[in-house]
Structure formats: C-alpha cells, structure tokens
C-alpha cells in the first residue's frame, strides 16, 4: 500500500505540510418511511405534506423505530466490513431550532448500531485503506427557508424525521483526491446495497469535513476545523484546499488554529467561522426514555448478511479473474452497480474485449455528451452485444459500426435492422470486389501506370477510390489483397 503519492502536500518557505482529513458522511437511508414515523420520504413533495404528528412533535406523540431502517443500517455496516453492535441506544441531542420540532434530535451517541470498519480505495498509485470509526442512525431535521419573505422564516418539515446514517471515518484521508475516491466508494457500496441512493443533488449524501494540517513527518495531529454540511465532492475538495492552506498560513504566520466549526461559501470559495469551540452547543445527550435500547439477534444479522449482494471489491476481483479485465477496466466497470450490471449483460452474449472497449470508449463518451446515466442509455445491453457480434463476425467494419452506434444512440434500434435498412453490410464477396476494383483501375488507367512504374504511394489512392465507390462497405482487408494482385 503506497501512501506517498496520493498525499496533498503544501510547501511554504522551507516547510512541507500534509493535510489530515476525516469525514462525517450523512447518508439518507433509502426507505419508504421515516425513522420513527410512517410518513413518506419522497424527495420534492409539496412542503409539509409528508409530516405526521410525530414528525411535528405534537404533545404525547411517541417515536416507534422503523425496522426497515435498522436493517438498512446493518446492511451498510456489513458492506463497510464493520462490527455490528447487537445492542445500541438512541439518545436525544438537545438544541433549539425552528426546524427541529421536538427540540431534540434522536441520534445514537455512546452506543452506535455499527462499530469499526473499513473502506478500500483504488488510487492511481495503489490501494489505500480508510478506517471507519462508526455508523449510527439519526433523524434528519426539517428545512428552514429564509429567502421567501423579508421578515419571516418558513419551515418545511417534510425531511423532519427522515432516517440518516452518519458514517464517521477515521482521520485517514490525506488529500482532496482521496476524499473524492472515498465518497465515490462509499456511495458505490451503498448503491450496491440499496441502502442509500447517494444522490448528492437531492441531499441524500452530504458531509461534515474535518481538516487539520501538520508538518510532514510529525505524528501528532494539528488542531482541526470542522466544515459543516458540504453537499458535493467538488465543494469538499475546494473547501479542503482552501482550509488546509488557510491553516498553513496561520501556522507560518506564528498564529494558532482555533478549533471551530466553519462553513464553506461556495460562491467565494472560502471557509468562514460559524462558531468557536466555546460557543459550541451543549447538546445534553441522554438516552431517549421513549425508546428501549435496540437489540438485534445473531439470527437477524445473519439473515441480513445472506441478503448482501456481491460488492464492488469482490466484483472487481471476479471481473479480473473471469473476464481478464485489467484492474483499470475492472475499476471502471464496478464503480457503480448499474454499469457492472450493464457490462455483465453485454458480455453474456458477446466478446468481452470488444464489449469492454465499446463500453468504456464509445458508450461512456456518448452518454457523457448527452449527460445521461447508464440506466438512461438509449442503447440497451442486448443491442450493444448485437452490434459487437456484427463486428466480430465481419458483417460490418469497426468504422461502419460507429455509424450504426450513432444511429442507435438516437433511439434503441436493433443494429441488425439499421445495417439492413441502410444497406451497411460489409462487402466481402471477392468476385463483387474484383469487379469493383476493375472498374476503378479502368477509369484511372494513367494512375495505374504510374503505380506500376514505381509510384507505390498511389496504392492508398486506389484503396480510397474503392471504398468510396462501395460506399464504405467494402471489406478493407480483401480490398487490399485484391488490389495488390490487380495492380
């Protein structure tokens, strides 16, 4: 495991600093209903239409744990190769805010449902292991909307009570690139498991980023700052770079770093102090007396274990073994469950090598251009494998295949039909080709003579003419052979 190259180092004067990063990722549990109520969790609903009496904290209302969310958290724990705690406790985190109806958030403080685990990152310079400290379940708060009215704040409680998994990493990350890889890997694992949709635009995945710096080679951690609630990988990376440099500047200037909570201003690309350690809330955590400790049996965990699908790391290994993919190719293919499913569907019926190249090359480029996910691909796995088979059996050339592919991108058409309708089938009949070539030589007698007298460069001209006359359909290999004979 090489660590050195994926480091992010900052040089100032004669000093070299490394950045130390830990993430608290908030991942919304993929679930029809909330953590402690039966309200729906659909994104984008009209404000305050998915709010029960429990979510709005009416007097006498009590939380009842949603078993499905517990299962989702345990599955995620298994996916993170983590210790599942058979006994966990829900605590109240007390603070006042308008979008926190209970006046406390139900979370897990001392006894989380999932303990230590790990995530393996594939960095360009090798693999890197990132430790997971814990995963716990908690409620999301509602949303305060400040910009609808000059004087009032509006509150939308649709999100109030939605189940979140807070996944806390160890301070093992050393660069914005590693953070990128870590978030993507976490997202990938959870999407494989179906426990979080990982949709960062909709806020299903966001993170608090803890950043500190220290002189390269020292062991003690520097004072860290926590950048709250960053909701895209790009912003996380920008925030880390800004924050690390800010801290280095302070140290170089002989100042100390205050442990504080900061906000990342995406417009100005800077972090700003939100509250200092002294102003930190005293959350007065204590076990929620409305809920008994959560106890799960070995049987319960084993059942969930048996429902765990093949995860990216295992799938990658299999793709390398079974399909002889390179580690680079395998990484791309397993990066998300949909791509890997697509790939496996394609190679079920067609050549692996060609399929790999076409997916990573043409397909990804085309999808990228149209800003589409693989699940929205106009070309189904079945049709892509048909196209590959047409290339493989010589029905069309690679070049023609690109034309067909372009057509297919316009709508999911059967490539065989496109080839037939447009008459794109490759001409591989030697007799037909001979006739064609004779005609070309005939009408270019002078050039043929020049060729024979030693101007061999003209061979390309003849190939071009033949291809032109055939409408690009002539089998290039045969054309070469016959031309050589005839000239």
């Amino acid at each position, binding site marked *: 495991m090489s660590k050195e190259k994926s480091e992010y180092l900052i040089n100032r004067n004669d000093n070299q600093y490394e950045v130390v990063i830990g993430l608290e990722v908030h991942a919304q549990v993929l679930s029809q209903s909330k953590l402690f109520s039966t309200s729906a969790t659909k994104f984008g609903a009209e404000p305050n239409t998915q709010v029960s009496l429990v979510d709005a904290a009416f007097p006498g*209302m009590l939380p009842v744990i949603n078993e499905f969310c517990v299962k989702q958290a345990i599955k995620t724990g298994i996916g993170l190769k983590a210790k599942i705690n058979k006994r966990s406790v829900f605590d109240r985190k*007390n603070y006042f805010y308008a979008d926190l109806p*209970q006046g406390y958030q139900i979370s897990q403080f001392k006894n989380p449902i999932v303990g230590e685990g790990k995530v393996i990152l594939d960095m360009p310079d090798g693999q890197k292991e990132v430790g997971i400290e814990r995963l716990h379940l908690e409620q999301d708060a509602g949303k305060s909307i400040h910009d609808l009215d000059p004087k009032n704040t509006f509150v939308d409680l649709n999100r109030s009570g939605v189940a979140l998994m807070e996944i806390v990493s160890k301070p093992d990350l050393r660069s914005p690139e590693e953070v990128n890889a870590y978030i993507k890997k976490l997202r990938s694992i959870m999407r494989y498991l179906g426990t979080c949709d990982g949709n960062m635009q909709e806020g299903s995945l966001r993170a608090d980023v803890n950043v500190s710096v220290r002189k390269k080679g020292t062991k003690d951690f520097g004072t860290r700052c926590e950048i709250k609630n960053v909701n895209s990988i790009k912003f996380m990376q920008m925030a880390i770079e800004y924050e690390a440099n800010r801290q280095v500047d302070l140290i170089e200037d002989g100042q100390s770093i205050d442990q504080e909570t900061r906000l990342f201003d995406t417009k100005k690309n800077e972090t700003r102090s939100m509250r200092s350690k002294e102003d930190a809330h*005293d959350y*007065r955590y204590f076990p929620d007396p409305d809920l*008994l400790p959560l106890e799960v049996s070995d049987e319960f965990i084993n059942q969930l274990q048996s429902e765990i699908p093949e995860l990216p790391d295992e799938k990658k290994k299999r793709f390398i073994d079974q399909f002889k993919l390179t580690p680079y190719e395998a990484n791309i293919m397993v990066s998300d469950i949909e791509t890997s499913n697509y790939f496996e569907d394609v190679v079920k019926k067609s050549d692996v090598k060609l399929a790999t190249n076409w997916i990573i090359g043409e397909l990804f480029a085309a999808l990228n251009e149209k800003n589409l996910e693989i699940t929205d691909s106009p070309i189904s796995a079945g049709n892509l494998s048909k196209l590959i088979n047409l290339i493989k059996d010589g029905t069309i050339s690679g070049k023609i295949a690109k034309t067909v592919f372009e057509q297919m991108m316009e709508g999911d058409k059967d490539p065989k039909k496109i080839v037939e309708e447009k008459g794109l089938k490759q001409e591989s009949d030697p007799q037909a080709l001979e006739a064609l070539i004779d005609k070309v030589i005939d009408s270019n007698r002078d050039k043929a003579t020049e060729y024979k007298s030693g101007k061999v460069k003209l061979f390309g001209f003849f190939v071009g003419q033949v291809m032109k006359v055939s409408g690009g359909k002539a089998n290039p290999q045969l054309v070469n052979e016959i031309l050589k004979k005839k000239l």
Partner: protein
Amino acid sequence: MSDITKQTLSELVNNIKEKKLSSSEITQAFVDRSEKSKELNTYITEDFSNALEKAKKFDDNPKLDLKLPGIPMAVKDLFCTANVRTTAGSKILNNFVPTYESTVTQNIWNEGAILIGKLNCDEFAMGSSNETSFFGNVQNPIDKNLVPGGSSGGSSSAVAAQLTPITIGTDTGGSIRQPASFTGTVGLKPTYGSCSRYGIVAFASSLDQAGPMAQNVQDCALLQEVISSYDQKDSTSIDFKRNQYSKELTKDIKGKKIGIPKEYRVDGMPKEIDDLWQKGIEYAKDCGAEIIDISLPYTNYALPTYYIVAPAEASSNLARYDGVKYGFRADGENLIDMYEKTRSEGFGAEVQRRIMIGTYVLSSGYYDAYYLKAQKVRKLIKNDFDEAYKKVDAILTPSTPSSAFKIGEKTNDPVSMYLNDIFTVPVNLAGLPGISIPAGHDSKGYPLGLQIIGKAFDEQNILNIAYAMEEKINFKNKITDWWIK
C-alpha cells in the same frame, strides 16, 4: 333516583344494564352536580353539552355489553382528547386542541364511556398540590382551602366530590396515589408499560404511567381492566398477559406475605401516620396475610434520584413547547427572543424550575455526577425491591407522610413540597404497581391512605389485597358538600 352521583361505578353500570337508569339520566346528574361545584375548580374544560348529546345517542342505541356503557367520565387534562382542548394545566397549551386521542382515553370510549370534561392538574403534572396549574387551585372537597394533592388534583377532587363516577390520572412520582390519599379515594399506579403513554402529554417518559382513580377498589379494578392494553404506538408498552382485574378480584388473600420496609419509618413522620400504618398491618393480618419485616436500603436516595431523573427528562420533553408549531407564542425580535419570551411567559415557576434543574443535571461536566449517578442509584432501588420480592408478595407502606395541607402552605418551600412524594417515588423509579387506599382519618378528620406496592405486572395481587383490606377498614369519607350553596 335522586342520588345517582352517590352510586359507585358498579352500581351505575348495573342500573344501566338493567335499564333502571339511562345514560342521559346519569350524565345529567353528574353534569348538574358539576355545575353546582364550580367552586372546587376541578374542570379546566367542560364538555357538558356534547356529553349529554352523546348520552342521548347512547340511549338511542345502547350497547349494554360494554364495560362502561354510557358512563360519563371526566379525565385529567394531560390526556389528549380529539377536538377537545388539552392544556396540561399550562398557559403554553391554553389554546391547544388535539386532532387525536390518547390510547388510554380511546380504550375508555371504546367501552362506552362518555367524556364530560377535562380535569385540572398541576402544570405538566409537576406538583403535589395542584397549585402550579395555570387554571388555578383546586379545592379538596374534604375541607375548604385544603389542597386535593397533585398532580392529579382535579381528578381526585372530582371523584371525591362525586362529579365523575371514576376518572383517570397520571402518576410520575405519586401523582395518582398522593391525591387519592388526600381525598379519601382509591388510586392505582400500574406497572410501567401497562398503560400506553401514547397521547399523554409527557412529563418524565421513563416514569409516567396513567392509572385509574375511583371511590373503591372494585371500580378501580374495572377501570384498570379497560385502560391497560399493549400498544405498538408506545415503544415502552409491554405485551404481557393482562388479567380481567375486576372479574378476578377476590378478598381471599390468606397466606399472602406482606413486607413492611423499615426504611419507610422516616424521621419526623407524624405519629398519626405511624399509627395508621400499624392499623394497616393489623387489618392485613386480619385478612389472613403474613407480615414480614423487610429492608429497602436505598429508600433514602429515592427522592434525590427522582428529582434528577424526572426534571432531566422533563427539560427535554418540554423543549417542543417553543411557540413555533402550536400553543402559546409571544412575539419576539427574532427566533431566540421569541423562544425566551414564549417560554418565560408560557411556563409557570415550578415548570421553569424543573426545566432548569433538568438542564443543569444533563449539562456537560455535570452529567456523570448527577444524571448518570442517579440512573445507577435507580438500578439499586429496583434491586432493593427485587430482593424484597424474593421474600414477600407485596409491600405495605403509608401513601404520604402527612394528610392534606392548606392551600399556600408549602408553595414557597419546594423541598418540603417534594418531600410529600417520599413514599410514592421509589415505586415509579422501580416501575412497579402501587395502589393507595383510604385507611383512616387524622385528628383534623382528613383522610389518610395506605399504599400497597406489588411486583411488576402483579396488579391483580395488590388489587386483591386492597379489596380485602378495604372491607376491614370500612372507610367512610366525610364530605359535607360545603361548596354547594
């Protein structure tokens, strides 16, 4: 029948079943008496006309196989009742009308009973005299200017004054048993987990329990049978086999072992209370029970433990009353200002005191010394009972260290007020059932109660002991109707 309101619940039920009385007649009688009893200030919200309408509907289509057919009933204003204002005795919920019904009250209506009103109580059930209610003092029908106990003071007063045949209260540290004791009535705090907390305005979640309050043990048993149910909407509700408490009620308690805890003989306890206790022991012996001396060594720590745990939970439970979503809101310059004004104006002094105590004991740096230690002591208190119950079937103690006191007597001395809960609080901390039955009078003629504490889920046993002793004690409440002009 002129004295409908003097009838016990069982008598009323029989009269309805035998069609000697209609629900309308009974409801009218209790409404009339309630109307004449406004001076007691038992009601926060009256629902008389709706009640009479419902009674008429019942009579039009009587369902006589129900357990509480057409019986009118007022309930403590801590139970949320659909479309009927629910205040918890607080200004902060002065205008709050729930759209939902608590499980306990729903169980009652399901058996045919009819709501006639919401009864006064200490604000958020925090008090031992009903003096912390935003809606004013409740008079004890025993004597003018006497507190009815608390926090279920409106409930105890209403039952004792026969404004409702039976009622329900809630008991977090003695709030059913102490007012029952002060008014010469019967009050049962069930095992924690027996009655659903769904829809009850929370005070201290790990201690709160709803329970029946009645004129006698039989009625109390019947109401317990109705209100106790397993409820998936309350995660602390327990699914155990519930008895048909009233049907299984028996006076045969021969051979039952009853423990007398020496630690309950507290310093400064009035002789009258000690004498009552001794008499209680004799009654129990008369019923055939065996008396055994026991020790509950951690009893002394119960009160301080309670006054850490209960305020801690309350400080968090009451955070939701912030002026944002429902209830009282004071205007403020900004969010924090609105919070501060709303909560300063909306909560009374005792509630604010407990929120502050609770906030303090949960604070970083104090949590271990107070809250965590209190939880450990709580476990030791429970262990005391577990040990005792290896030797005995139930425990007999006084319900309170004194009889009812005068309104205003202890308002400026919160600690002396808290001491009133000394015999009842350990039962809540241990999650056990306890019943208070009237057992005699002090020199002033005020009632005094005895408490029988049972094993968890053993309500039937303490009801049986109470039932047997009730007959021997043959208590008669001295109520003169002084408030009726």
